[in-house]
């Protein structure tokens, strides 16, 4: 399979491992800084919402978490697809590294959604299209991870969970549409989530800052997890890490 030498160079774990190691601190630092600024803006600059009072401040974590949960699923499916198409180990490792973080954000989106829903709608849970899609998304993340852990053969685990991730990416929009359709049928059972009121620009800024911070956090965490996966999987690593480990081993004698 000839896909160009450059691509092969970057797609090899050997090249990726040290690169990721150098990038992680940068992403982590910028993520923390932006999170600090975002929280400051969110709590001290953004005004009180005249309809929802202070409860609206939950959206500074809820909306970024919800966006990340969906975005990460798509990214995971893209890596899975690349892995299936090019038979590239690194792509499968990336897909594997993304799933737990995506699942965590999905869980957080559901939790903070309930926290927001109780004071605003008077109910912890509403069968709204977004909430339902998010719940199904959580199941799909769980499916991808469980399918992987229950298959012993690594190669098969990679490919089987990739197929499921790709099938799921088709499913989520259909679910969203179907629940919305279903709500029009069962009128009165649902409350529209659209706030109606215009957001103050400082609110929007704070929310976007938090989103970028979450995004950078995800990149840092996912790269770190990918590095762990590489150490675990490659029985004899040939990266700079190996030299350090041998050094340590010799000193230990």
């Amino acid at each position, binding site marked *: 399979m000839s896909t160009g030498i450059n691509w092969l160079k970057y797609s090899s774990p050997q090249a990726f491992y040290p690169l990721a190691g150098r990038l992680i601190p940068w992403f982590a630092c910028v993520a923390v800084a932006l999170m600090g600024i975002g929280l400051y803006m969110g709590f001290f600059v953004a005004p009180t919402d005249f309809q929802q009072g202070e409860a609206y401040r939950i959206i500074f974590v809820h909306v970024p978490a919800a966006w990340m949960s969906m975005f990460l699923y798509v990214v995971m499916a893209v890596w899975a697809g690349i892995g299936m198409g090019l038979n590239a180990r690194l792509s499968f490792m990336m897909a594997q590294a993304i799933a737990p973080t995506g699942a965590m954000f999905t869980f957080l989106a559901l939790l903070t959604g309930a926290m927001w829903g109780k004071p605003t709608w008077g109910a912890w849970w509403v069968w709204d299209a977004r909430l339902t899609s998010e719940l199904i998304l959580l199941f799909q993340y769980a*499916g991808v991870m469980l399918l992987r852990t*229950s*298959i012993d053969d690594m190669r098969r685990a990679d490919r089987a969970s990739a197929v499921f991730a*790709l*099938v799921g990416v088709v*499913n989520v929009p259909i679910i969203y*549409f*179907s629940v919305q*359709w279903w709500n029009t*049928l069962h009128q009165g059972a649902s409350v529209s989530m659209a706030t109606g009121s215009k957001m103050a620009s400082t609110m929007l800024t704070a929310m976007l800052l938090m989103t970028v911070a979450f995004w950078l956090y995800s990149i840092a965490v996912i790269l770190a997890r990918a590095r762990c996966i590489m150490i675990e999987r490659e029985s004899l690593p040939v990266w700079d890490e190996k030299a350090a480990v041998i050094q340590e081993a010799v000193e230990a004698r």
Partner: protein
Amino acid sequence: MSGSNMWEAVSGIVRRDLLLAMRRRSDAAMSVFFLVIVVSLFPLGVGPEPAVLRIIGPGVLWVAALLACLLSLGRVFTADYLDGVLEQMVLIPQPLAILVVGKILAHWLISGLPVVLLSPLLGLQFGLSGEPLGVLVMSLLLGTPTLSMIGAIGAALVLGVRGSGLLVALLVLPLYVPILIFGAGAVTSSMAGIGGEANLSLLGACLVLSLFLAPWATAAALRIALE
């Protein structure tokens, strides 16, 4: 040449699977019994008020049909996987996806069609009659093949995996949600006097979509399982 060979391979698979089901009738009968029992439990649980039963009827029947399909998924590929027939299927000179369509068709004929045929009787238990009853049968007729197709993907993914029975449920049930919504929705809206056509066309759309996608995904999953 390949058109007729393809047809021969598919019809060969369907005929063989039907023959096998005839030899083991109890297997096929089990999912139907399951459906009847589950559906009969609900009135005992929620009480016999006809008004309540009429409201929950479509949902109960659809959820039961979905679970019956789920239970029978283990039979689609497992036996062929264990006795080596699946290897032979992967090696035939036709696209594997075409053959998968045959397997799915056979699965539907054995475990989906009986559910469709039985549904009017079960609908009567829940006080459905007239047009809603017809819509129920129609929705199951359009929806159960889709359930078989989506289920086949999950069944192929968990082949030979420990704890596959529970895992396949976890993988497949989220994918079944739209079918459940449209299927039960068709009956509900017909009862509300809106008519079930819109929901039925959506079920049809799902059927067409899964007919295009599911066989390929299943074929990919089968190749992965056999490596």
